[in-house]
């Protein structure tokens, strides 16, 4: 019980509305103003999860989608039924927070290159798992559009370079962990979203990603697998970008501020060797 109430200290209760508003406003701006094929509507959720814990993260995620759905003015179209997914994203972020995934890990020399290799390997491994998914490659289905594969390979290569550059430029091995956590979160989100999209909305969501759904269906995927395929395409990218944004934000907050949050001590940089 104290474990639970600790996650909802006054500071966290103040942070949650800020996080929800950031989710909604940034998601709305990225999707309708910048018109990008990513969502970026879980920065606040992951931030709260990492700073406060799994239950606070889950509450933030679920509340974001429900409030967005019913918010006058920028009403969220199809976002409400995905509240469960948003909750799980927040829960996972809390787990990553406990595990210290988002703690900076300044490194140099050979260990830095090791981190680069590990980070790139994780991305390529996940990418190959995703892009060998039956939704894209089931031999019974066949005839999937070539551009899906081309785009998949291109994205995996770009992502590998981006993660490698991040680790090398910041001299921080945490980049590998953050990338892995983000991609894993994305895969879980995709797996949970697919049945909701398929069951509730006939497999589409009214955004740009419907093109991918259409392409997969044209290739012969059924309603569920087409949604899953689209999710596995978009979500890992989205959640990895989101995780890096959160990492950058946390890394630029002072230890003094971080330490006051429930999971703060797991985010504080290791003291420099005296």
């Amino acid at each position, binding site marked *: 019980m104290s474990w639970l109430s600790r996650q909802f200290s*006054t500071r966290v209760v103040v942070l949650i509305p800020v996080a929800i508003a950031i989710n909604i406003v940034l998601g709305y701006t990225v999707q309708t103003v910048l018109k990008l094929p990513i969502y970026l509507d879980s920065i606040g959720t992951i931030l709260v999860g990492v700073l406060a814990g799994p239950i606070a993260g889950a509450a933030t995620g679920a509340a974001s989608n429900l409030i967005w759905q019913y918010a006058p003015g920028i009403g969220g179209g199809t976002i409400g039924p995905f509240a469960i997914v948003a909750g799980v994203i927040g829960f996972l972020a809390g787990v990553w927070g406990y595990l210290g995934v988002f703690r900076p890990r300044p490194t140099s020399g050979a260990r830095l290159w090791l981190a680069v290799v590990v980070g790139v390997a994780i991305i390529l491994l996940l990418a190959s798992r995703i892009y060998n998914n039956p939704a894209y490659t089931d031999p019974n289905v066949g005839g999937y559009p070539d551009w899906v594969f081309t785009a998949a390979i291109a994205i995996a290569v770009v992502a590998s370079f981006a993660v490698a550059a991040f680790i090398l430029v910041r001299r921080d091995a945490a980049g590998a962990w953050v990338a892995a956590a983000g991609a894993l979160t994305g895969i879980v989100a995709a797996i949970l979203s697919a049945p909701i999209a398929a069951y509730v909305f006939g497999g589409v969501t009214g955004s740009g990603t419907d093109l991918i759904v259409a392409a997969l269906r044209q290739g012969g995927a059924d309603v569920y697998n087409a949604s899953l395929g689209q999710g596995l395409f978009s979500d890992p990218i989205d959640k990895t970008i989101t995780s890096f944004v959160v990492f950058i934000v946390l890394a630029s907050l002072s230890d*003094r501020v971080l*330490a*006051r949050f429930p999971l703060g001590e797991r985010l504080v940089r290791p003291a420099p060797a005296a």
Partner: protein
Amino acid sequence: MTLALTGVTYRYPGMTRPALVDVTIRVEPGSVLGVVGAADAGKSTLCLVAGGLAPATIGGKVEGRVEIDGAPTGDWRPSDLAQRCGILFQNAETQLSGTAATVWEEVAFGPRNLSLPLREVAERTTWALDVIGIEPLAPRDPGRLSGGQAQLVALAAVLAMRPAFLVLDEPTSQLDPQGTQAIGSALRRLAHETGVGLLVVEHKTDLLASIAEQCVVLVAGSVVAAGPVTTVLADPRLEAWGIAPPSAVRIARAAERAGLPEQVVAAMTST
């Protein structure tokens, strides 16, 4: 009843250097104690320690005694302390709860947190609006007030907790001269009519000269001067400490340099 800090040294969490060093101050009921100091002299820290938020809410370590009427404030929960010593910050916007549709409900937010009967919530709200003189604002949307009005609402909101002491951390730093004046006269009325003891941190020494009776100067976390406000704010070392003296003092000094008769200078300083 007295708010007293005795030999207080405070360190923020994870810091070895103290932000306050051996600070001793006393705030009496119905009186105003002014605090001046350069940026980073520890003024905000003093407010947090005196208001009991450090270490209760932000952590850190206090040595020495922080007491209200002889009882250590550290023994109270933040919600109990809020009814003995209130605290007002610089930024009006972030101090409002952000949940109220009207100023009236914003001021009622604190008393409602205490689970008081509705009758008492309503009485305290009306009283606080009245003391600060902002009843006309009661039906307004707190999100659409000027900076000065919002700060007055924040002051009324803290006052509705009925604290015996009030700590104010540069309450006018984000306000225009008009807003500053409004806060100044509200504070004067507050101390003289309600008997609340005020600890006011303020770099506007003109304002302080007009509301405070006693004054202390903080340099690098230590009290370097203390006494009646007219004496302290006329201290020749003030500028060396990074503090601009009140205009009355500056004018008097200029008059002195210009060779005006001593009586004229004295008359100027006293106003």
